[in-house]
């Protein structure tokens, strides 16, 4: 007799492998664009403009922005994977395959988030490899580096899931990335240290969770950060718990998926 735990494990791995199969099947849309875009970032901001900027935080400009660019690609891809996959499942009604099956809602959430996290991490790895063609990277704190990229991917995969729950059209899954996520990423210290900003804008920047992720990740790789790493971990964990609880609440309520 199969135990409930064993059945849940099979259901979770099935959902995760389906999600991984999906983004690998459409790799020209999911894996290739971030590699090309980030190559352009390294060429333009790193080599061409970065050479004139000089050092930042004690590092060459290209070295300084590399962790932020890697984190930016992780965040964007974790978010968009879940947003587009879950919304497509709603749009094509094949989310019903999961609703009629004995898969608890927390597993549906976990499966999609794990899929988004997997794509975020894979793209992060690809961009890291690309960055090695332009600069030398070393990892100062391996645990902080890996745990921060992992937690950031989870957090933004959860964000993508909530976006997809509320979305009623494909336009609505691109609004948040375009008008909220991208500005937050650019203003989250990817390309500059917030110490360059006036004091007021430094304080405003502290409201941006991406600032904490980028800086903690940069600390893991370079050993330099604008903020305390412990604070970054605490904020991200609180955000993950909050978004996961909210996403689960929406799923249990049936928002966007059940009549």
């Amino acid at each position, binding site marked *: 007799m*199969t135990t*409930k735990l*064993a*059945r*849940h494990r*099979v*259901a979770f*791995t*099935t*959902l995760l492998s*389906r999600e991984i*199969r*999906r983004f690998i*099947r459409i790799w020209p849309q999911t894996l290739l664009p971030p590699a090309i875009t980030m190559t352009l970032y390294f060429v333009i901001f790193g080599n061409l403009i970065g050479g004139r900027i000089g050092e930042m935080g004690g590092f060459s400009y290209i070295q300084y922005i590399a962790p932020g660019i890697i984190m930016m690609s992780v965040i964007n891809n974790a978010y968009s994977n879940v947003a587009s996959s879950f919304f*497509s*499942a709603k749009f*094509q*009604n*094949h989310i*019903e*395959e*999961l*609703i*009629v*099956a*004995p*898969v*608890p809602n927390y597993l549906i959430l976990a499966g999609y988030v794990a899929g988004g996290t997997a794509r975020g991490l894979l793209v992060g790895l690809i961009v890291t490899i690309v960055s090695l063609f332009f600069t030398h990277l070393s990892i100062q704190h391996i645990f902080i580096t890996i745990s921060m990229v992992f937690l950031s991917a989870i957090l933004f995969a959860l964000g993508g899931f909530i976006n997809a729950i509320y979305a009623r059209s494909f336009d609505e899954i691109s609004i948040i990335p375009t008008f909220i996520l991208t500005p937050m990423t650019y203003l989250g210290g990817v390309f500059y240290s917030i110490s360059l900003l006036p004091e007021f804008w430094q304080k405003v920047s502290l409201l941006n969770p991406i600032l904490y992720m980028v800086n903690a990740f940069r600390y893991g790789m370079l050993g330099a950060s604008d903020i305390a790493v412990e604070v970054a971990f605490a904020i991200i964990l609180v955000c993950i718990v909050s978004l996961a609880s909210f996403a689960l609440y929406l799923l249990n309520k*049936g928002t966007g998926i*059940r*009549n």
Partner: protein
Amino acid sequence: MKALSIKNLTKVYNNGFEALKGISLDVQQGDFFALLGPNGAGKSTTIGVITSLVTKSSGSVQVFDTDIDLDSETAKSYIGLVPQEFNFNGFEQVKHILISQAGYYGMPANEAEPRADELLKQLGLWDKRNTAARALSGGMKRRLMIARALVHKPQLLILDEPTAGVDIELRRSMWLFLKTINEQGTTIILTTHYLEEAENLCRNIAIIDKGVIVENTDMKSLLNRLDKETFILDLKYPLSHDFTLSNYNCQKIDTNTLEVELKRDEGLNNLFTTLSQQGIEVTSMKNKANRLEELFLALVDKSEATL
């Protein structure tokens, strides 16, 4: 044991539409049950509630004595659903769709793969196993949905208009397949607009109209209520111009076709004797309308009159 027990089920949608007005229904284990009704009667809403796709407003649903509110995982594990609309990921390969669905029910890949292969062969989809589902023909998509519903070996199979838009040859092969799995012990609930399908397959029947069950009985009793039937007779030789058939209400459709109305207590033998005496030879005969169709229309008309 009851495969399904619905008590006082109501559903009011957010826009105020009352789709189900307190329906109660029992389906016994092993039954082949028809749930019929006109468009918008509440059939799909009922199925949606049973399968957790629709949230009920009140009432209870039990599947093999398991309440869907108290132990939804167990209740869901008993059910296989073939919905009305195609609802698979068209970009996924046919075989992956089946294996994934089995996985959601906790069936590991080493069991799911042979089970998927077995169903793909039974339903004539083996050659298409590595094809993206969107590339299948309409009939193949229908069969894929049946295979997907059966992959976890459900005890209760619910089919919501499974043969809609399917050609007659495929429809008949699907009937045969469904009869076989019913004989093997799977309880089947079927909604359909093809009343001939329900009459041929189902032993018990419920008719729902405007959210109310207007009839719930066994097929035989229901058909016995017909007090007359109309037959179309194809004749070998043309009828004469002055042809009449005394004691029968009949109508000449054309020179070689005759329509005759028979009361229940009038045997067909008497009719054929009368025709033989007049030298009329019948080559074939059929019902003018499906018997269940006549009753269905009468019951729905009656429910409209009382509402």
